[in-house]
């Protein structure tokens, strides 16, 4: 057993995961050696058409066998048909014991549960939630789920921690020679940023599209030099589940109050000036923060530099209004964002590696001034949990939480003090996703707690006078008083989830629920 720097006791080995390298600080691990190499390939002028008849033929041609690792991206979100279609085909072809390496899974992928139970899928490395999260939490998977951030995942690929045998890339448009784009097509999803590293490092890359266009498709998200086979299917997804219409700012008064406090904190900070860069999630509070910040930027004549991350219509409007010079888009959340990335040269598609990988020569998160994040719960040490629910079940992936928190100069986590009667500011989070050392402030409706490590921000907020400052202990005590005592989660010893820090060290583990 070893104790990592956020106080978690970890075994030296975890069955189904391997040796454990304990987390020891957000910038502590420096890699050595070279990047992992992909397979060399030669293609000559006798091969000018990469299309194959169907998914099964592509699987056959790829050489995929039992025990291998297959990867997918989640740009089609809850509208995705491709993961289920591919695994169904594998099952029919008798392929078993697969490691599934998606960037994320959604509710629609609950159709995989029979394949997990029958052994077609034996391991998942990627975020799980809903029914699959519940299944894993109750011990229904052979190997633990491995959770990595948006930057940690390409890092693991580049470093060779994960070798992708076959990458299946759902592509809203493709030509016969393997140029891929998310910009157009009935299933358009905008950016295809999560799939880029997979395309570069997988031994075999299969594009699955429902919009085959004449060569050459341009501009591309992923170019022909990476793609081995192209399969045209009737539909890769349900457009209604891929993107929402437009993203709405919350009208809930409590959430607006939290957003108002967060915006006041941003305004008070030294980063609120010309050239500010900014990332928020698409959640209700985050968008409301952006809405308040936008108004103040307009009122004070401040022009930002870039907006980053998952891009919504809200950021697109700010680009159009000149409040941002550029949008750096790893994931386009709504139709407006999809249209914008297709039409506006200042709305730039970036890969997850470019966005957030700590092990390259510089990710965009390092240039970020301010990020507004959420969390299931936070604790007295400013640690944040986004992975598990109050009942201890796996709830959510890490997303860019760790990466942006680590990179940004001002990391804000907004959360109600309680959700229902469940406290969200606690003594010690159940799972540490992001360590307190990279979290600068917790913003609740009952006030703003700034990390004592950031005396500069505390002083700036005091000077501004309109940030309702409290201490983290006051928040935790108030939450406890309002909720009453909570029963601790009952677990078995068996580890069913491993939460990696973005550098591949283990920051926490999730244990099987005792039910």
């Amino acid at each position, binding site marked *: 057993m070893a104790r990592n720097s956020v106080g978690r006791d970890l075994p030296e080995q975890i069955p189904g995961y391997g040796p454990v390298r304990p987390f020891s600080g957000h910038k502590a691990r420096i890699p050595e050696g070279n990047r992992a190499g992909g397979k060399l390939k030669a293609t000559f002028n006798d091969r000018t058409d990469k299309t194959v008849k169907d998914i099964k033929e592509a699987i056959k041609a790829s050489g995929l066998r039992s025990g291998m690792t297959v990867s997918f991206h989640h740009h089609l979100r809850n509208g995705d048909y491709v993961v289920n279609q591919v695994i169904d085909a594998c099952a029919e072809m008798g392929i078993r014991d697969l490691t599934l390496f998606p960037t994320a899974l959604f509710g629609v992928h609950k159709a995989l549960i029979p394949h997990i139970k029958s052994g077609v899928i034996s391991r998942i490395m990627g975020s799980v939630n809903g029914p699959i999260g519940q299944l894993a939490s109750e011990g229904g998977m052979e190997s633990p789920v491995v959770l990595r951030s948006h930057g940690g995942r390409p890092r693991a690929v580049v470093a060779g921690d994960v070798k992708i045998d076959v990458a299946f890339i759902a592509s809203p448009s493709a030509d016969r020679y393997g140029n891929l784009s998310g910009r157009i097509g009935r299933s358009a999803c905008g950016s295809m940023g999560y799939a880029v590293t997979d395309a570069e490092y997988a031994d075999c890359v299969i594009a699955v599209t429902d919009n085959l266009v004449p060569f050459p498709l341009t501009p591309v998200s992923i170019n022909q030099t990476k793609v081995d086979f192209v399969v045209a299917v009737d539909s890769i997804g349900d457009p209604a589940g891929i993107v929402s219409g437009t993203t709405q700012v919350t009208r809930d*008064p*409590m959430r*607006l*109050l939290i957003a108002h406090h967060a915006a006041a904190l941003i305004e008070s900070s030294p980063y609120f000036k010309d050239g500010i860069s900014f990332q928020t999630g698409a959640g209700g509070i985050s968008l409301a923060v952006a809405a308040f910040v936008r108004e103040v930027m307009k009122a004070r004549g401040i022009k930002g530099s870039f907006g980053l991350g998952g891009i919504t219509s809200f950021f697109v409007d700010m680009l159009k209004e000149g409040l941002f010079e550029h949008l750096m888009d790893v994931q386009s959340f709504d139709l407006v964002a999809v249209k914008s990335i297709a039409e506006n040269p200042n709305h730039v598609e970036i890969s997850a590696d470019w966005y957030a990988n700590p092990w390259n020569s510089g990710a965009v998160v390092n240039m970020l001034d301010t990020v507004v994040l959420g969390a299931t719960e936070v604790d007295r040490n400013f640690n944040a949990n986004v992975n598990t629910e109050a009942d201890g079940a796996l709830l959510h992936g890490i997303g860019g939480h760790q990466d942006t928190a680590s990179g940004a100069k001002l990391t804000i986590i907004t959360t109600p003090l309680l959700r229902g009667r469940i406290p969200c500011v606690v003594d010690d989070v159940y799972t540490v996703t992001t360590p307190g050392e990279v979290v600068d402030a917790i913003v609740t*409706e*009952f006030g703003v707690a700034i990390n004592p490590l950031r005396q500069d921000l505390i002083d700036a907020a005091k000077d501004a006078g309109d940030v309702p400052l409290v201490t983290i202990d006051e928040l935790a005590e108030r939450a406890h008083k*309002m909720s009453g005592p909570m029963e601790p989660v009952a677990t078995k010893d068996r580890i069913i989830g491993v939460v990696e820090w973005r550098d591949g060290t283990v920051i926490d583990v999730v244990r099987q629920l005792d039910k």
Partner: protein
Amino acid sequence: MKLRRTMLYLPGNNPNMLLRGWLFGSDGLILDLEDAVSIHEKDSARILVSRILREGEFGSCEVTVRINGVDTEYWEKDLEAVVPFGIDGIRVPKVEGPETVKAVDEALTRIEKEAGLTVGRTKICCLLETAQGIWNAYDVAKASPRVDAICPGGEDLTADLRTQRSDEGTELEGPRRQVVLAARAAGIDAFDTVFPRINDDEGLIRETTFIKQLGFDGKSVIHPRQVPIIHSVFMPTEKEIDRARRIVAAAKEAAERGLGAVSVDGRMVDAPVVKRAQFTLTRAGFFEEVQ
């Protein structure tokens, strides 16, 4: 000289809002047992509000409870559940004449005595939601020393007047003037009714500007986002603040020099004007200058 610009309604069946209402920065809170609560939830809401009054926090807000009307079976139970916690006041709906106030006054006296509270501490704000109520506004205002404010109705009153609410609020203009007049004659406060269109900021600013000009002390508020908007309308202008400062300074100087009369800009000002100037500074947030 307490500020009463915004009195925010909190639904009596919503623990989230009841526990957090004070965070929205209104001058007062109205924990609502009447219209916000369906007939099936009257008992549970009463218990919830009672618990929140015992254990909850309200910051510096004036705390009042809107009880059910005296024509219902609930109003005395409501009073018994909330008055013992020493709230600042109650709002009584559909008051039509002094006899209603007297009945509530008697019940309050009994409950205050039983709870060991100072008799008379619980104030009454009367909602005048019918033509008859508006007609009797002055008599209602004078019916008990507990009555410290009156407030016209919105929807109910409009219906009783056999008209509809318009964007301009023409139909409520007369009742509003009557309420201010009666309140001032009786020496109490006048609150305006709620502005129901919660996303119409322009409309809210227009209406608040109008009722401020009529002389209202403040407004009932249906949604927290309206609070800062109303406060900004009630915020005195730089010119008003400047003049108020000079009046208060002159009054102070006159008092120090033992002079009875106060002169500002070469004109004599009397005590009510000084008081008004102090109130302007209070509204502007300069509390210490008034001390």
